[in-house]
């Protein structure tokens, strides 16, 4: 079990390193993408800055809470886009017979598809998340570690949700649009404080569209640390990862390979 976990981690890190080197090949483009994304995210905070210049608090949420929410949500998104970039186009890979390539290799198919792509611009989200986070807490190694763990948890929730949404393509054919809309909904809800939503909406956001576990609960953990919250987050992350894995491999049994001739390069 431990050896398997080590092997998987090594595999993910090898791909991460290869993807990073590939992005760094065009250093100017890489840096400009990071800067653009950073500025883009700052612009999103502008609205909240204007709003909180008019009000003191929003159902217990202050501007500082909003900044933390953005730090965690953009960090989680960065984890998904940098480490598991293949999750963005999984339904196209399924519908166009692109899994053939991965099926022929001796690595776990789902993990291999997920780590095979990475988005350089997401480094901008990561830098933004980290910078905003450091602005809202008194920086320490412990806090930094907590940030990394929380964005990893959020990133795994986002990735698993994307896998579930995109795996619908095994049953409905080309489901890229539906999957994109579902994943977009998760990201959008993650960027708004739960304090504004009604009880019914909150229930949805902790179950069907789990934005609560991407950003609301992590912000609460940072704000008022408690082991039950940490346990709940850990339990949900493990659960959704297993459900996503189960649905993907269940769908894979229905997979029909394509005869499209493509060139793939894998590390």
């Amino acid at each position, binding site marked *: 079990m431990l050896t398997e976990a080590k092997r998987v981690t090594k595999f993910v890190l090898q791909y991460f390193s290869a993807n990073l080197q590939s992005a760094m090949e065009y250093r100017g483009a890489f840096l400009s993408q990071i800067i653009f994304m950073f500025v883009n995210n700052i*612009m999103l905070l502008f609205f909240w800055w204007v709003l909180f210049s008019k009000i003191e608090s*929003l159902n217990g949420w202050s501007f500082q809470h909003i900044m933390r929410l953005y730090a965690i949500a953009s960090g989680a998104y960065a984890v998904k886009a940098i480490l598991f970039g293949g999750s963005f186009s999984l339904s196209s890979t399924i519908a166009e017979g692109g899994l053939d390539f991965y099926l022929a290799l001796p690595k776990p198919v789902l993990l291999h598809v997920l780590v095979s792509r990475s988005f350089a611009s997401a480094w901008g989200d990561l830098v933004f998340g980290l910078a905003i986070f450091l602005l809202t807490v008194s920086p320490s190694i412990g806090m930094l570690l907590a940030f990394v763990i929380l964005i990893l948890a959020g990133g795994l929730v986002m990735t698993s949700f994307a896998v579930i949404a995109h795996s619908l393509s095994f049953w409905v054919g080309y489901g890229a649009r539906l999957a994109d*809309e579902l994943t977009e909904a998760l990201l*959008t809800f993650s960027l708004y404080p739960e304090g504004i939503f009604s009880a019914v909406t909150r229930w949805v956001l902790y179950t069907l569209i789990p934005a609560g576990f991407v950003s609301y609960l992590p912000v609460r953990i940072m704000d008022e640390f408690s082991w039950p919250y940490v346990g709940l987050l850990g339990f949900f992350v493990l659960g959704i990862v297993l459900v996503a894995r189960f649905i993907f491999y269940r769908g894979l049994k229905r997979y029909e390979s394509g005869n499209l001739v493509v060139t793939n390069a894998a590390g």
Partner: protein
Amino acid sequence: MVRAGHLKKYLQVAEISLTNRVVYLADHFASSIFLLLILFIFSQLWRTVLGAGGTLAGLDSTGMLWYMVFTEVIVISTPAYHRLVSDEVKSGDIAYKLNRPYSYTLYYLAAHCGEFAIRFVTNLAIGAVFAYLTMGPLQVAWAQLGWVIISFSLAMVLTFLMNFSLALLAFWFEDNRPFFWIQSKLVFIFGGMFVPVEAYPAGLRIVSYLLPMRYGVSAPARLMVDFDYAFLWQVLLGQFIWATILSLITAAMFQKGVRRVHVNGG
């Protein structure tokens, strides 16, 4: 200048552009999910922030949501012809269009208006139904609606001129996408996408009054939800001044730019 007899062909271009869009109407409705999502979030946000009786920049929670319906609808209904123009300039395909019996700029203005009109109507239908069901009706100043439509029409022309002039930068820059990116951010802030610019701190508010984005997005939306004659004259003046300035800039850029086009026979 366009002679009256020539106007017909541009109206036909607009009609073709509009008809093309009608063909894909089902697809268009399906792509409005994001509009509903963002309106849903803001309906809950404004209800929480403003509650009963609270106002922001003079608008209550119902007014704020309807304001957002109009700003969002303007932005998402704006067609992306600027990408086509950029590609034509970069690839040199523009040379094939220059010798046709129409003005290149007016051709795209007509196509822009045709597509904008149909997208605006369908997006507004979706947004309006949602806003009506969640927040209640908008108090429309029916007697003054003609003025509001004029303002929306000028906003449509302004957004075209802004995008078209940026697209023409392709004559001088290999990659003009960063300019569009910057413009989209300026529209978000100074166009008052989420909140009327009147809610901004004084410095930012003044900057937004001086830039064209406000007259393309925020001002007509605000006029629709909170009509006021003094505001109307201010908006129409701003729109007219910016339409004139941008028309002159676009014409000058186009004249200078086409001189850089080299046509090789063979």
